[in-house]
């Protein structure tokens, strides 16, 4: 992850000098200021920072759910808008956001129906992706009949069903309890290793960021900006035990130091 522009062809996401200001009734809010970020093919990038640092906003800009005020951004070499129309990415929200009137299979089928894929292809992708997230056999269940962890896995399957090369995840495990979260972290890592997708992952958990990522982007609030980018050189094959190793703790400490330096606690309201 460097800003060297000669490697542009490899960059899935390229952001230069990007700013976003929200106009509110009392004062403009600088949600993002001077963001520069390059994400390579196959990277697992975590955006971490305190609330209000713009990490979710940045993800939404990449997904074309927000429009930046200034600066340049390209996704897969085109604008985020074009990328969205090409269905170039899968997006996983904080909550599973499954439709309660559709069963699990139908929920995974939703984006495929919108893309007007033929039925056989839809069936294939539903089956493959539910298997990938360990939900085979739950096709006919409705979301409210599943646990929170299973719902979130189903929503990941739904994002993967689009078969995107890029996966955008916005605190997908934030609402889950620690044990389920650990389990899903491990599964996500295996999935990433298997499929070699590029992942941009928003979190506010340091262990999660360090455990999952190849790169950790530490952000700071007011205005939202990138404080530091930490390259995680832990071996790619990781199990949960890696969290006990000194190397892991060392990186975690660097992230924590970065977070601490990036803002003082005084100005938290």
């Amino acid at each position, binding site marked *: 992850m460097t800003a060297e522009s000669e490697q542009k062809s490899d960059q899935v996401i390229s952001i230069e000098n990007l700013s976003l200001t929200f106009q509110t009734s009392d004062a403009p809010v600088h949600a993002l200021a001077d963001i520069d970020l390059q994400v390579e093919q196959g990277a697992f990038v975590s955006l971490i920072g305190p609330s209000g640092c713009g990490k979710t906003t940045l993800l*939404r800009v990449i*997904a*074309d*759910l927000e429009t930046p005020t200034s600066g340049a951004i390209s996704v897969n070499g085109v604008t985020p808008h074009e990328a*969205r*129309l090409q*269905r170039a*990415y*899968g*997006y996983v*929200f*904080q*909550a599973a*956001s499954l*439709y*309660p*009137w559709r069963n699990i299979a139908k929920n995974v089928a*939703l*984006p495929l*129906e*919108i*893309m007007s894929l033929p039925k056989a292809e839809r069936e294939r992708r539903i089956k493959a992706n539910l298997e990938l997230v360990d939900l085979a056999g739950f096709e006919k269940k*409705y979301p*409210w009949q599943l646990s929170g962890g299973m719902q979130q896995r189903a929503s990941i399957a739904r994002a993967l069903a*689009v078969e995107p090369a890029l996966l955008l995840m916005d605190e997908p495990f934030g609402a889950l309890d620690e044990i389920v979260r650990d389990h899903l972290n491990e599964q996500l890592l295996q999935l990433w290793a298997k499929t070699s997708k590029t992942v941009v992952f928003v979190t506010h958990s340091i262990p999660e960021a360090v455990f999952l990522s190849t790169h950790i982007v530490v952000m700071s609030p007011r205005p939202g900006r990138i404080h530091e980018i930490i390259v995680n050189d832990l071996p790619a094959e990781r199990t949960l035990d890696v969290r006990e190793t000194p190397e892991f703790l060392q990186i975690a400490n660097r992230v924590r130091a970065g977070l601490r330096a990036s803002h003082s606690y005084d100005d938290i309201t």
Partner: protein
Amino acid sequence: MKSLRGALVLIATVAAAIALIAGLWIGPLISVAAFIALFVSCQCGFSLLRTDPMDANSSVVWQDRAIVIAMLSFGTVFGSYVLLHQLGIFESADSPEPGFAFYSLVVSIWALGWLLVEWLADIDSRRGFVRRILGVVIPVLFGAGLLMLWEVLTRALDVPQVLLPSPSAIAERFGNSLSVLWADFKQTFLKAVLIGYAMGCGSGFLIAILIDRSPFLQRGLLPVGNLVSALPIVGIAPIMVMWFGFDWPSKAAVVVVMTFFPMLVNTISGLAASDHMQLDLMKTYAANYWQNLFKLRLPQAAPFIFNALKINSTLALIGAIVAEFFGTPIVGMGFRISTEVGRMNVDMVWAEIAVAAVAGSCFYGLIALIERMLTFWHPSVRSGR
């Protein structure tokens, strides 16, 4: 709770005792019924004294309860039978007037009936189907008790027909005028209500979809629609009669106007009910307007739309019936009600009201059933409410 039951037991006991003593001069049947009522109410009293609320679920208490409920059921049913039987005797020519004993027995049986409901309401079964059966049985018992009391009092006290006919008289009139009732039902419900309802709900829904793309119009129409929903729209009935004539189209027109606004307002609110995350999700799929509408926003709006359909089912009947007060050909539920009231044929009015009640609740029930099938996923349906 307990003091209420104590009082009821006391009333039942004292009344039964009086009926027993006074009934000795009237006939054996009243005495037997009074004796049984006395026995049952005393058992209730003992059970009340025995019951320790702290371990209300022990098997002893269960047994006790079952016995009390069985005895109460028997006492009430037998007592009611005796009362009805006795009524028939009183109405024959050369019989004594219903006296003190009779009314005491009525009071006693009434108290026993209430106690039965109290005891049944105590059953707190964890099994779903038992609870569902109780959920039907208790209100039905209550309704039957009320009918019984109505029947006994109107006949025993010789309440004038004009004031309040007895249920049996209403039922008789109902049976004798089936063809008239059917013709009225056809005119008012099958024509005015159903056609007006379909047109009103349909147009409200379509207009809501049409203005869906204009947030400006929505912001303007929502408060106006809400306000209009609260206005006495039935008042347009005389105007509609002038415009569309005496027959059912004018009634259907009133129904159209009455049902239009609730549907419009609810559909607009329902279409706005999807949350940001769901809309963002559709956006990440680059879904077009119609995909978004049919796959997300309409299903999400379904509970709102059904709410309007349910409100409108009642409004439609009211609209059609009241509109008939302003002029009709000589058929229709509202016409029948207003003319029979004029002729003091109150039993026919009650029969017509019974038709309206059954039609109204069946109509509502049907829509509620469809709602349960289509919005099975909604929390309010899932929780079984």
